[in-house]
Each structure stands twice: as structure tokens, then as C-alpha cells.
């Protein structure tokens, strides 16, 4: 989108919201405006919460039951350690991998796929084996996976110039010069993917902590992905579109703003292979990645019983600086309208790091480091359709469907993995990042825009490839996520701030994808397990490590 389009879109959105205020468009399908618990979260700023009435002692407290917190709990439970409490502000666990469900299908409210695990993703492989999805040797180069979770063909398609093509790399109307650049880009990425340093570490590993620290690679963190491409002589507009799409899709951030290290990591780190699938196949499910988080939760419950406390806002953390005693964590329980103080011998902070300055008292260095982080907001919509939408010509409906000229990142089809011959009603999960805006401006737009305006924009966009979308949409539910993911801007990956959160502590450890600077399942799980294993070591509990 160029500047003029963007200004026009703002004007259009403004006009639409005015219109919506005056008279809500009657033709829009019904739905709900959902989101992370914004108003509870904002009480953090006001700090007007009452003092604790009850105090409870817990050997290990995990704050945040997203992928990081659940992975930490999973590792503790696996080691037979039951004395922990896992708390989350939301009414259910899962974080960015939560899902919804209606009569038609389950559907994601966030993360929706996992690439085939790399050889370094030992903990991911172990989890998948436990969930019965990876069969045979957990460390095999090419394990077999449950076909129900291997994304069915066709996996991706792109709507370009009024026609769907297979795959996301634009092909229609792309000349020989641009295709040469495609090939050179593929070769460049392949070279990065194969590169090992003197110690045998991959140039770009997943989890990223296992990557090479060679200076020439770390220098990539100083420039943006876009500038790096241009410096390498890549000027093909369609290649730039493709790379920008990838950056927006994974980081909610444009290639001009993403660190080249993070951008190349996206392409060069996903080296997982399978015996029964091509290496670019992903693992997915109707409910997105919720099958992974609910699997971890079930596993914890089966081993050590119920350890989860939902609807609990950690709003004050005191203590934990070196040499002091247990940490005092104040939890506001909105359901009971009271505050609970937990005295934790060990604290695993598995909530986003942007909360640290609002919650921690003392810890000046950590707070400064947390302020270094920037977050991308997202908007996610689930459209319930009474039937499959009408199609323009070209490739048939895929799992991931991207519009070349769309402001969104396209949509995934929740019922894609269903074993059905005849596909009737379905749910489309539509994703929108706000990479064209400063995050603060986007968050303001998220706060103020009514559902009807989003619904209208979504329908107007999807009407291009699917003329009947208005008629067949029976619901449009919209989910706002103001701090959906960390933005890997240049410098973050190699920053001291990130190193500070990644370090081990006496009583306090951080277990969130933010610690890696990349909002990926593998990173969050790695950080969770690493924090759990460090905690177990400190508590002198014996365990077998899940990490390479």
C-alpha cells in the first residue's frame, strides 16, 4: 500500500465509523467484539487495587499460562515436581494459542501452525511424541507425523490480479529478471540454512538461542530486512512483496522495520523434515495451536493434578533481587473482587515483558530493559460461513489464502483438515497486522473502532475474491490483541536488554517468546522449559533435560 492509499483508507475508516455510530448497518452479520482483558490490564496503570487479604506460600509460581508458562509447568510436572501454581489473567490458558468453537468448527484466535520441528527443537519433538503426533524415534532426522495434523494439500494460494495461484511467491506476470532474483534469493537462503559455525551450530537455529554467534551473522541484526535485501541487489518488487508478507505474517511488522537477522531467521531456520511430508508442510488443526497448549495442560493435570488459577492478574511483584527472600506476588482476582498475595520461593515470569515496568517494584535494570521492547497489535476475525464461498478462477481453496493487494494477511480455513468429501459450512480466520501504523496509533485504532467498522472492512476486502461473502457470512467475531507479539526490530536480538531476560537468576526467571525476541511457539516453549529446568536445578530436583 502506498501513502495515498493509506491516507484514503484512514479517511474511509473514519467515515465508516461515523456512519456506524449514527446507524449501525443492518446488513452486517452479528458477532462479538472480543479481546485480551484490556480493562483489567489497564488497572495496572492505575494501581488502584486493594491490598492482599490472604497470603499463600508456593515454592514455584508461574505467571502467565501461554505457551511459555504451560511449557514450564509441563516440564516441572514431567520431573514429578507438583508444588507449583500457574496463574493467568484470562479465563482460560493458552495465551496467543487460544481458540474458539461454535457449531461449525473450532477455530483459532491467534497462532495456527507449527513448522515441522528442526533437529534442535528437541523439546517440541518430545511434546509432539507425547501427544501422539510424532511417531517413532524422537531424534530421527525425518520422523513420521500424524497425517491429521500435517496440513492437507493445497496448503497456500495467492489472489493476484483477479486470479488465484498456487503458493505465495507471486508468479503471474513475473518476468525472467524477477524470477532470476527469486532463484538467487532461494540460493542465498539455502546457503544460510546449511551454514554451520566452527562449533557446529547452525547459522539460524530454532530455538534461536542455539544459533551461531559469528560476528558477520550478528551484524545482520543492525539493518532492516528490506535494506539487507536491497544491499544484496534484490530489487524485485514481487520478491519484496513476498518477504514483506512473511515478516508481517510472523512478526506483525513490515520488512522495512524488521531486523534482517529475524527476517532471514524466518526463511533459513525451518529445516524440519518428515518421513511422510514435504519439508515445507506445517502441522495444524482446526483450533490452530490450541491443540498444543491444551495438550500441555492435560499433561500437567494427568501428572500432578490441577495447578491452574485463571482470572488472576499479577499486578505487583516485590523482592527477588539478589540475596533477598521469597518474592511477593499480588494477584487481583476480579471474579472474587479481592487480592491474594503469593509468597513464591521461585518465580517464573511467563507473561509478556512489557508488563514488567508496571508490575515489578525495584528491578530498575529489568524495567529499563523491558522498555526497550516494542509490540505489534493484531486484529483477528472469525467469519462463520453457511457454505464455501464462491470462487474466482484459478487454484482451489487452500488452507492459507492470501490476497496480494489485501491489507490483511489473508485467512486460514478452520475446516481444512476435516475428513469430509463435501464441505458445507466453514469458519475463516482472518488476520490483520498494523504494520503500516506506529504501534501506539494502531492500538488507539483498536481501542476506538467498533466491530461493525472492522466487519465492513473485512467483507469489502474478501468480496474481491469471493463475491457472495456478505450473503453467506452468518457471524463475524472480532478479536483485538493490542500487544500481540514482540517486534524484532534491528538491535533487539543482539541487545543487552534481551540478554538480561535470558539470564538465569537466583529466584526469578523469564519464560516467554519475548525473551527470544521472536513470537514463535518453539521459542516460547524453549524459554518455558529452560526456566523450569533452571528452577529444578536450583531446587535440586533430578530430571532428564528436554533441551539439546
Amino acid at each position: 500500500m502506498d501513502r495515498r492509499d493509506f491516507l484514503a483508507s484512514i479517511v474511509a475508516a473514519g467515515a465508516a465509523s461515523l456512519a456506524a455510530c449514527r446507524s449501525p448497518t443492518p446488513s452486517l452479520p452479528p458477532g462479538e467484539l472480543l479481546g485480551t482483558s484490556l480493562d483489567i490490564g489497564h488497572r495496572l496503570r492505575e494501581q488502584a487495587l486493594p491490598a492482599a487479604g490472604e497470603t499463600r506460600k508456593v515454592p514455584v509460581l508461574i505467571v502467565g499460562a501461554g505457551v511459555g508458562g504451560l511449557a514450564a509447568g509441563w516440564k516441572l510436572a514431567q520431573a514429578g515436581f507438583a508444588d507449583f501454581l500457574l496463574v493467568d489473567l484470562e479465563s482460560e490458558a493458552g495465551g496467543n494459542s487460544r481458540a474458539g468453537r461454535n457449531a461449525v468448527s473450532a477455530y483459532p484466535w491467534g497462532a495456527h501452525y507449527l513448522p515441522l520441528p528442526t533437529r534442535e527443537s528437541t523439546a517440541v519433538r518430545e511434546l509432539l511424541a507425547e501427544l501422539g503426533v510424532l511417531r517413532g524415534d524422537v531424534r530421527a532426522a525425518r520422523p513420521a507425523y500424524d497425517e491429521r495434523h500435517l496440513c492437507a494439500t493445497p496448503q497456500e494460494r495467492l489472489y493476484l490480479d483477479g486470479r488465484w495461484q498456487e503458493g505465495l511467491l507471486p508468479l503471474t506476470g513475473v518476468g525472467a529478471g524477477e524470477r532470476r532474483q527469486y532463484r538467487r534469493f532461494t540460493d542465498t537462503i539455502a546457503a544460510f540454512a546449511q551454514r554451520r559455525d566452527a562449533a557446529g551450530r547452525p547459522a539460524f537455529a530454532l530455538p534461536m538461542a542455539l544459533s551461531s554467534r559469528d560476528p558477520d551473522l550478528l551484524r545482520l541484526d543492525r539493518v532492516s530486512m528490506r535494506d539487507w535485501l536491497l544491499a544484496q541487489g534484490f530489487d524485485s518488487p514481487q520478491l519484496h512483496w513476498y518477504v514483506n508478507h512473511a515478516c508481517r505474517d510472523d512478526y506483525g511488522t513490515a520488512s522495512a522495520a524488521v531486523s534482517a537477522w529475524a527476517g532471514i531467521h524466518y526463511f533459513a531456520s525451518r529445516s524440519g523434515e518428515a518421513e511422510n511430508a514435504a519439508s515445507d508442510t506445517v502441522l495444524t488443526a482446526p483450533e490452530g495451536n490450541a491443540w498444543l497448549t491444551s495438550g500441555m495442560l492435560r499433561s500437567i493435570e494427568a501428572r500432578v493434578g490441577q495447578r491452574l488459577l485463571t482470572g488472576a492478574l499479577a499486578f505487583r511483584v516485590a523482592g527477588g533481587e539478589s540475596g533477598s527472600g521469597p518474592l511477593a506476588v499480588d494477584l487481583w482476582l476480579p471474579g472474587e473482587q479481592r487480592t491474594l498475595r503469593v509468597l513464591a520461593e521461585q518465580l517464573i515470569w511467563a507473561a509478556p515483558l512489557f508488563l514488567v515496568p508496571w508490575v515489578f517494584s525495584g528491578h530498575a535494570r529489568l524495567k529499563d530493559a523491558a522498555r526497550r521492547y516494542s509490540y505489534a497489535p493484531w486484529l483477528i476475525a472469525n467469519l462463520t460461513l453457511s457454505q464455501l464461498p464462491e470462487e474466482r478462477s484459478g487454484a482451489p481453496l487452500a488452507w492459507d489464502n492470501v490476497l496480494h493487494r489485501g491489507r490483511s494477511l489473508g485467512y486460514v480455513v478452520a475446516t481444512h483438515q476435516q475428513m469430509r468429501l463435501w464441505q458445507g459450512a466453514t469458519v475463516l480466520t482472518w488476520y490483520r497486522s498494523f504494520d503500516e501504523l506506529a504501534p501506539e496509533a494502531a492500538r488507539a485504532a483498536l481501542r476506538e473502532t467498533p466491530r461493525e467498522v472492522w466487519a465492513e472492512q473485512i467483507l469489502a476486502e474478501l468480496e474481491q475474491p469471493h463475491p457472495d461473502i456478505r450473503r453467506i457470512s452468518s457471524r463475524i467475531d472480532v478479536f483485538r490483541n493490542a500487544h500481540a507479539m514482540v517486534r524484532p526490530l534491528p538491535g533487539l536480538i543482539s541487545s543487552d536488554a534481551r540478554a538480561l531476560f535470558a539470564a538465569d537468576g537466583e529466584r526469578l526467571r523469564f519464560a516467554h517468546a519475548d525473551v527470544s525476541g521472536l513470537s514463535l511457539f518453539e521459542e516460547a516453549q524453549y524459554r518455558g522449559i529452560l526456566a523450569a529446568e533452571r528452577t529444578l536445578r536450583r531446587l535440586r530436583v533430578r530430571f532428564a533435560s528436554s533441551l539439546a
Partner: protein
Amino acid sequence: MKRALLLSVFVIASCGLAYELIAATLASYLLGDSVTQFSTVIGSYLFAMGVGSWLSRYIGQQLIQRFIQVELLVGVLGGFSAALLFFSFTWSPAPFQLLLYLVVFAVGVLVGLEIPLVMRILKRDLAFRDVVSHVLTFDYLGALAVSILFPILLVPHLGLIRSALLFGVLNVGVALWTWWLFREQVPNAGWLRAQGGVALLSLLAAFAAAGELTTLAESQLYADEIVHTESTPYQRIVLTRWKDDLRLHLNNNLQFSSRDEYRYHEALVHPALATLPSARRALVLGGGDGLAVREILKYAQIESVVVVDLDPAMTRLFASAPPLRKLNQDALNSPRVRVINADALQWLEENDESFDFVVVDFPDPSNFSLGKLYSASFYRLLDRHLAANGLAVIQSTSPLYARRSFWCIVTTLESVGLLATPYHALVPSFGEWGFVIAGRRPYRPPQSYAVDTRFLTRETTPALFVFPRDMERVDAEVNRLNNQVLVRYFEQEWRQVIR
């Protein structure tokens, strides 16, 4: 009079361009490759117009009478051109291209005659430079009008057949109007008027009946008499009859011909079922026509047959229409048969019943949705429903026309641990056709058949399992949901066979 003639130039020019566009569009629809169709049609049309212009020198006298005759001819020929071409294609596609260029050429020649004649008529009243300037202006304006209206209004709202007829009416209208203007000067005015009247009436009648014309043309697509058509949410069911041959088409694909369907269904059922003397429970997936069921019911030991077919309209039709009930020997109404209208995949996932004999008779894997029914995941699901000593038989497209597709099905069955026994039979309506028997124990062909058969015999059965060199096994990948290689093989292979 001058203005009237210039207006008719506008109309004539519109009609001329319209016929050209209609012919090119129709050719693109029916033959594909629109670039070739448009350039060759437009090229021959322009050339024919040149021929017409040149021929105009031979028209000496009776300019007005000749002009009226040309208009009537263009009106009728151009007006009926789309209908004529469409019908000729549905009758026989072979001479279609010849006829197309004949029509294009004839209309082109006549249209080429029009403008020179009008110019010569106008020359009597106007200076030459005014004639050229006025006539060509209106000529190009008419062309502009149609070129804009054609894609926006005419094709979407009227269709090609009606658009052509409409322009035919306009041409005849010009002829009749000219006749009215010059009725004092034209010899044989009455005769000309009668010709015009007939042309106008037949074009109008055809325009009114264009809907039925299209249906008639569609019926020609099937060659035989259509005895039943039905559009369901899932498919278009068309049943045709020619003498005693009943044929079922689903979405324009032939499913069976009553002439030789017994060959297909005997080959599908008996080689496996004749080896299962203790089989009690049978399952038929996708055989809503009841013909496989008819063969299964020949075995007295079979106590129940479950038929799972998605489309209730199919099973209702084959359980109620007398000629079809006769064909399947009323199999679907047998007390031993239970018909379930459900998605076979969903039904298999949600049920635990197991069967001694399973017939998998799905359409060929021509799209990703059907490709699922031939995937490793599907065969694992099938395996769960197979009794310990049970057998399944899978219709597996043609090992001759789609050799890699056929062996891909065999490879896929083997990949889930089933023992696969491929065989084939000749079904004239389809050609050489393939089947695979799958089970957990080695299969041996039957030594004899205890039931009546028209096609299979003890002696000929071993030959079914022999694959001649041109159908021998070839390497193929396992068809998985996450690669759908079978759909890709199938597309490639049938593209070689069907034009």
C-alpha cells in the same frame, strides 16, 4: 432520408462488429485458447469484409433493392449464427471449425458489401467528401457502441444466442425501414416486404424461444434423449436413454451405461466376494445407483448391506424410478439393505461398525476433494472398518489411460499395511478399467462362482489379474492428504487422453 441512412450505417456497423465478437467468443467458449480464436476469427472476418467491398463493384443497378436484400441476408445469417454454431458443435464437434469460418466468411462478405452500397446511395445527394466523412463516422461510432455494450450488457444478460438474434432483428429492421423509405423506387416491393416479414418473424420467434433452444442444444450434448435431470446441492444428475441403453451422468461424467454396466459391477464385486463364503455384513461406499448392491445381494449368506451415499436424490431416484429399479433389481428396497445418506468420510470416522466386505466405488480422483478418498489416511480409516478376514475392493480408474494413477492407488494401499491385489476388466463404455482388492491376508482369486454371472467365468478370471506390458506396474508416490499426488497424476494422464 439522408439522416435515416446515416442512422442505418450506425446500426449496420453495430451489427457487423457484434457478429464478429459473438463468433470469436463462441469459438473461445467451445474450443478454448481465446487468443487464437479471437485473432483468427477477427482476421478472417476483416478479410471477408474486404472481399465484400471488392464484390460491391459488380452491383450495378437496383442499388437499393440489393442493399435491402443484403441486409435481410446478414440479419438472418448473422442472427442465427450463434444458434447454428452452438448446435453444430453439440451435434458433432469435428466440422465445427469449418462451419465457424464459413459463417464468419459469409457474414463478413455481406457486411463488407453494406458500406460501399450505402455510400453509393448517399452519393446521389451528397458531395463525396461528405459521404466518406459521415458514413465512416457513424460506422466507427456503431462499432464503439457495441464493443462497450457487448461485455457489459449483452453477454451477461442476453447470452450469445439471444444477442446474435437481437442484432439480426436490427439488420432486418434496417432492411424494412429502407424498404419503407424507398418503397416508391423499388421494384418488387411487395416480394421484398414479404421476405423481410418472414425474416423478422423467424428471428423474433427464435429470440422468444432461446431458452428452450439452449436446453435443446444441451440435450444434443448428451446425444441421447434425456429422461431425467436433477440439480442437487452436490451434483447434476442426468439420465439419458437411447433404445434400451440407459446412461447415468453425474456432472457430465458418464457413470454407467446399462449396456455394459454388468461387466463393471460383476468385476467390482465377485472376484472378492466369491472368496468370502462366511461374509455376513457388506458396506458400499458411493454406490447410490444400487448396481453393486444388486451383485452383492446374489449371495445368500450376506445378511446386511449398508449403502453410504452423500446424495439423497441419487438413492431416492434409484429406489423409485421403475426402469432404474428394474436395472438394479430393486436392490435399494431390499430388506437386507440400509441406505444412509451421509458423507462417507464423516460416516467412517464417526462409526465403529466393521464389515466383511467393503465396496469403495467413488468417482475418479479428479479434484482435491475426491483425492482425499484415495489417500493413505482414508485407507487407514477403511482398514478400521474391515473385519479380520474381510476384503475391500476399490474402483481405481483405468490402468491403461491413467497407469501411474492406478499404481499410485496400489502403492498407497500397501503403504498402510494392506495387501493389495490389482486386477482389470474391459468395460466398453469406459475402456480398460482397474480395481484393487485390499485385505490383511493374502488374497487368492476364486476357483468358481456360485452365483449367476453374465461376464465372469471360472476360466477367464485368472486373466483379470494379469497385466499386459502397457499396464504393468510403474513407480508412484504414496497419495497423502498433504501431497495429493494422485490428483496431479490423474490430471496429467487424462489430459493426454481426452481432448
